[in-house]
């Protein structure tokens, strides 16, 4: 569904991605693990158009989306939950969700309401807090809102950047249970995560990134058993 081919991205003269090649297969959860600064976030940001690639290709559903405007990429059906949640803090939960459906504002009124229902079913706390200002939510609730907002564009591919960051283990468990539920419904997920254990336990397939390159890849179950992965990332 998503094919990233020999992608290289730079910040000024510093190369953050070196010929990165990955696949995200339809209906699967694919995860990218690795230490801080390995290039995981840059990879997601380049796929979603926030960063520009210097070389390489991003192919989505047989369409070249390399370096397209982020808004066009959302239109194409890819939605990203950014690192650190990035909810619109001064707006209400309801407004944040409404903005999630921004690209569909001229059509699909009814479907937008259906999706809002679906998000409220996944995260009932968001419905309770619908008129509360997003900046006052707890970290976990903000993460739920960030996922909910991303779902409101009705994506076929969901990109998640470190959804566990700064959250209590219990909250992390519940977020990942939701990801599995979305996976059951057929959503394709590309998950960047520093918490290798929970990521590999949730995913079907995994990549390990190191210094801007893919160091290792394989079925998630195999990676969990891999000695190197165990030593460095699961320790």
């Amino acid at each position, binding site marked *: 569904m998503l094919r990233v081919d020999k992608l290289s991205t730079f910040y000024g003269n510093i190369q953050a991605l070196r010929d990165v090649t990955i696949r995200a297969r339809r209906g699967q959860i694919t995860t990218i693990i690795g230490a801080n600064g390995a290039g995981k976030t840059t990879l997601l940001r380049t796929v979603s158009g926030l960063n520009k690639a210097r070389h390489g290709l991003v192919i989505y559903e047989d369409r070249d989306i390399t370096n397209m405007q982020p808004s066009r990429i*959302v239109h194409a059906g890819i939605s990203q939950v950014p690192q650190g949640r*990035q909810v*619109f803090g001064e707006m209400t939960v309801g407004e944040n969700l*409404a*903005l999630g459906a921004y690209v569909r504002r001229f059509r699909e009124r009814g479907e937008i309401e259906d999706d809002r229902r679906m998000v409220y079913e996944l995260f009932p706390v968001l419905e309770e807090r619908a008129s509360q200002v997003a900046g006052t939510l707890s970290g976990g609730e903000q993460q739920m809102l960030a996922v909910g907002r991303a779902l409101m564009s009705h994506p076929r591919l969901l990109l998640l950047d470190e959804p566990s960051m700064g959250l209590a283990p219990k909250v992390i468990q519940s977020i990942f249970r939701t990801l599995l539920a979305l996976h059951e419904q057929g959503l394709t997920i590309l998950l960047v995560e520093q918490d290798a254990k929970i990521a590999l336990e949730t995913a079907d397939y995994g990549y390990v990134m190191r210094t801007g390159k893919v160091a290792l890849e394989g079925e998630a179950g195999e990676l969990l058993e891999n000695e190197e992965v165990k030593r460095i990332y699961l320790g």
Partner: protein
Amino acid sequence: MVGRDADNRILVGGAAAAFCVLIVATLVVKGSTGLQWIMSGMTVGSIYALIAMGFSVIYSSTHVINFAQGEFSMLGGVLMFSLVTRGHLPTWLGFIIAVLIVTAIGAGLERVAIRPMRNHSVISVIIVTIGLAIALRATAKWIWGTDPVRVTAFSSGTRVKILGAYLPPQSFWVFGFAAVAVVLVFLFFNRTLLGKGMRAAAMNPDAASLVGVSSSTSSLVAWTIAAALGSAAGIVIAPIILPSFSSGAMLGLKGFSAAVVGGLGSAPGAVVGGLVLGVLETITAGVLPTGYKDAIAFLLLILVLLVRPQGLLGRAEDVKV
């Protein structure tokens, strides 16, 4: 942190108190003449407020200071002269046509001059807006000449007497239009998804891009709104100020000062900044030789930049983690 917040509150509170004392003192010492100054100050202040909102809308979407903002007001005024005073169109029709023409010019300039600069630094874009201002001024000079034009007031009739102060009927048109414009801008940014998207982009550009808010669309809409606000301001004030090809520069600088005083990017700040500046100006013009009047805007600007650079109602840039 708490200490700094408290300091800031004392600063803004102190400024508000000083301003109130000045108003009361003016009323007590000068009586109805003082009221006259304050009312005239609010008239011109409403105009500064609308121009300041134009600056703020473009600034919060693109971080660009549009130095051609005053030129939109100038164009509104001189177009009104051609359409209504010379062309004998009804005032309301002239108003609509003039606003539409200037708004179209604003949107067109964004597409041909600003959008191609999107990969350049903000400072380069600001320099482009200075170029646009000069070009608009030169075009207006070529079409309307160098003499100021006299634009017919919206309604005939003599001055209205309120508590001993006299106000031209045009002042009420100014207040009315300013109020309607402020409400429309508020509704746009708080009730429509397009407006909310633009606010979201000002708060968090990356997250807004990820929900599909396009910076190119935001920039176009911001310029359209700024041109509409600027032209409406220039049109309603035209019968009071005698517009000419060069009147945009001063209006623009006053509007810019008002925007900075209130807090660039803050709509309520623009209104407060505009009214405060307008009133201070007319009081100064009353007690000091008239020539000092125009210096007030710059004194206020420098003072605010030194003491509270984010403006009265603005917020210091949040540090993003």
